[in-house]
């Protein structure tokens, strides 16, 4: 059979695209983001039906030139390449496939939620710190964030550990919430990144981490444990030069000389010292 005969025949079959074609086209082009009865990346077929029940033209126009209209929802890519007839077939399928279905309520809570194991470590997107954050739940009721980007203790809070549900249920387009009250924090200082190198952490038999990093050529090991109402930051630093650290008002040191806010430790003192953070 010559090709010039076949081509228009196939084109016509698309023009009169059956429900079967609409189903296949939907599966191939839409199903990744639009489920029949539940909002995922985009609205459900039930909602699409509500919007475009008697509006085929508007449906096609939207699919050809979508715009961002929902808060917190990504803009749909254009489906112009499918052509009007195929888009209409998809709409027909969406109407048919959503008939009689009830919108599943969005899952609003974490069915796998559990109290924090203490200690527990979870790397996660957290508020008011860099994106390479490490959250730790300590025995007791304190929690902290160590930022692997600038190699600093950044946040301490008292209470339950974290609510990560917004992240877990998604593709990471969310920041976890610290549960409880933030008692201590340090502001951002991206300039530190050039001076540090994160080496990772080891975990002791109880599950507590010891962070390892390099700062200005000195090798740091830092273990953070609860002490009284606050924290003890136990350091072991290998340095050939005297070590200088900036202390905040809540922090005292077990060794070294303090001038204004500046703590200086000899290489011998730096080998083992503790910074104590008093917390309300």
């Amino acid at each position, binding site marked *: 059979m010559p090709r010039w005969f076949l*081509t228009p025949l196939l084109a016509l079959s698309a023009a009169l695209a059956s429900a079967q074609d609409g189903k296949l086209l939907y599966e191939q082009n839409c199903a990744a983001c639009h489920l029949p009865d539940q909002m*995922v990346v985009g609205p459900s077929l039930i909602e699409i039906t509500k919007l475009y029940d008697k509006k085929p033209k508007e449906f096609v126009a939207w699919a050809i030139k979508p715009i961002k209209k929902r808060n917190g929802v990504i803009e749909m890519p254009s489906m112009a390449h499918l052509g009007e007839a195929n888009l209409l077939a998809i709409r027909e399928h969406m109407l048919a496939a959503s008939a009689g279905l009830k919108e599943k309520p969005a899952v609003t809570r974490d069915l*796998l939620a559990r109290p924090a194991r203490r200690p527990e470590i979870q790397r996660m997107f957290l508020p008011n710190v860099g994106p390479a954050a490490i959250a730790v739940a300590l025995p007791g009721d304190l929690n902290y964030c160590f930022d*692997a980007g600038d190699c600093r203790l950044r946040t301490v809070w008292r209470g339950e550990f974290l609510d990560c549900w917004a992240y877990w249920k998604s593709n*990471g*387009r969310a920041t976890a919430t610290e549960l409880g009250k933030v008692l201590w924090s340090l502001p*951002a200082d991206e300039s530190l*990144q050039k001076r540090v190198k994160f080496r990772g952490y080891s975990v002791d038999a109880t599950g507590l981490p010891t962070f390892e990093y390099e700062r200005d050529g000195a090798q740091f090991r830092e273990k953070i444990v609860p002490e009284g109402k606050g924290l003890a930051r136990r350091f072991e630093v290998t340095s050939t030069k005297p070590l200088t650290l900036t202390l905040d008002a809540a922090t005292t040191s077990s060794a070294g000389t303090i001038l204004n806010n500046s703590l200086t430790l000899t290489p011998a003192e730096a080998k083992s010292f503790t910074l104590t953070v008093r917390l309300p």
Partner: protein
Amino acid sequence: MIPTLLFLAAAAVAAPKKPAPAKAATEGWDKAFAMTKVETPAGIDDQVGGLAFLEDGRLAVAFHRGEVFIRQTDGSWKQFAEGLHEPLGLLPDGPGALLVMQRPELTRLEDTDGDGKADRYRTLWDGFGMTGNYHEFAFGPARGPDGALYVSLNLASSGAGVFKELRGAWSEIGKTSREQLTAGKTGSAGRMYSRVPFRGCVMRIADGGRGAASLFATGFRSPDGIGFDAAGHLLVNDNQGDWRGSSPLQVVTKGSFNGHPASLVWSAGWEQGDPIELPVPELEKLRLQPGGVFVHADLSNSPTQPAVFPKAWGPLAGQVVFGEMNAARLVRFLGEDIGGVHQGAMIPFLDTKTLRNGNHRLAFAPDGALHVGKTHLSWGGNNGIIRIEAPQTLPPLIETVHLSATGFEVRFTAVMDKASLVPALRSYRYKYHSTYGSPKVDELPQDSAWSLSTDGKLLTLPLKDIREGFVHEIKLAGAKSIDGRELLGPIAYYQVVKTK
């Protein structure tokens, strides 16, 4: 008369694209391959980010919420690590050690006291930027024949902005300011953007991850699948989207630019401003052509990890299989070297609803069974692990596709029934442009005076026009073996980069 009428009718609806025909019955796949579910650890979200068999044969799996579990020989699971940030790749690294790529870094998980649990999380490489944008996934590592590790880094998506505090030096190249992006105003950032180091690049970390990291290749958008084939080619796929008419398979060479311009800013000595603004013909000249195309909608919308068939799969041994997120199927890639370029055919595999979609991570067990780990991350997909036994004998499949000087040669695993062969051939390509996706363009139906070898296993398809830069589709709908069994995966999509 009738054809004329039909033609007019077709013209009136502005020649819509022909929808792909309904899928052939899939009982064949289910009959030929035994698939079972592998029970996952209780009480966890079993979306799989990484899956690998250890040297001792046990299965290690990394899950969405940051756990790594190892399946013991009695089938029970033991937790090896926890607290990782979206692990998306796992690779054994000697007794008691696993390499894992997580959002912020490449990490070596080490069990130093031999209790079966990692007690050291050693950072091997974190020298890349992070903006906090959700789309900045990190994939790999793949171990090269040179002993180096290779990882791939996603671009950020204009579906979201960036965090106030970033990791890595900010690139001023781009229309949108850091302040705008921090406020979530992504308007002219480009659908995908690269504003901190190496987003959109493939990176090489020397000496098994212990050495220096260097930029290996640019030009990626969302390179979820990274791995080496049996001959040592670095295969990295990407996802259809902006600058990706259909998902490509890039056979990545050192220093290559692989098509998505955003990451060009990280190439050494870049001085040409915003690469998104460069004329397309210039980018076209720079880019490495894909060695294979995952034909969108018809075959694969979102390809994932490659794995190499082991000996237990007989004639398929040494070939590559990819996962696919959006459809209930996998994809085989049959590569060959033509004119110094590695290129070849994509073929549907395990194309059955039983498999389900979300096919993300692939690994073969020591006994040859293929294991497929699933995920969705709130897109279309699934969860859990499926085990597919290595078959005793293969059903009728396309075994190889070879581009000769005169056309294609398709070899089958079974003796074919000549009367059932109705080869339908066409070639087409995709636009290279900033627009999301592309229709098939410059389509050409092709005829062939084909012949079947006397042993019934080799179909020769001479072609008048073999077009460089085009997908050549060879469809064998309804093909059967001489004993009446259906040819499974009866279509091959061969991307011709070079004709000779």
